[in-house]
């Protein structure tokens, strides 16, 4: 069974989410991080197969890491 990649859930707490490089492009994740800079501080760490985004929200936003994941997916689909 595949486990959820999301570790942090509470608002204003650090949350981490792992993106598989096979599905999520580096450019889309970086673009999403730039777009999110007004509402959260995002640091990206990269290894061979994944990119880990550590998100520290500036405001109370529920499930920010999952929202971020949806946003990245949207960028990938719309960029074609």
């Amino acid at each position, binding site marked *: *069974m*595949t486990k*959820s*990649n*999301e570790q942090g859930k509470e608002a204003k707490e650090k949350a981490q*989410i792992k993106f*598989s490089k*096979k*599905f*999520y492009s580096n450019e889309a994740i970086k673009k999403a991080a730039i777009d999110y800079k007004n509402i959260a501080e995002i640091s990206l760490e990269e290894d061979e197969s994944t990119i880990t985004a550590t998100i520290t929200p500036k405001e109370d936003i529920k*499930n920010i890491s*999952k*929202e971020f*994941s*949806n946003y990245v*997916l*949207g960028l*990938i*689909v719309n960029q074609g």
Partner: protein
Amino acid sequence: MGDSNITINEAECTVFVRVNPKVFSLGVVYATCYLFTDKHYVHLDGDPQKEITIELAPKDTSSKNAAALASLAKEFENELLKHGFYNMQHTESLALKTIMLKRILSMPDSIAEVYVGKPMKEKVDKEVKLLDNDPIENMLKEEDPSIDDPEGIAIPWEEKYGKQNDKKQRARKRSKRKSAD
């Protein structure tokens, strides 16, 4: 609990759907996932060559039990099938659409724009330029004798046998006779 390709985690209100990439292309999976981002959190994982795992979590978790999560997974699979079918139809009809658009574009620009609209015409013009590099099309153009006459040997019928030419020839003959006299 779950089907062979569905795993439900009721505690975290999440359902995992596993998809065979040989049946559904990655493009179809992305399109379906994007459709679900409106009301659900969607995350992709796995291997695009062997098995794609889609994690679905409803944004509204107030009344989500195992049965609701199972129906969500089934709904996702239905959408996947629908997108796969559309994609297949689109691929099959692409050649026909291209031929029809090429025919429309062979009309004068102003008429073609009425049929397809200006932005669409510009987009298709680009695609047709790419198609112009098709070797078969190029071969057909080369075979057409009316296109090139680099030596200037070919003479149009009107020029050779036309009425205007007769007048010119008569005028030349008259001028020759006068000069001979």
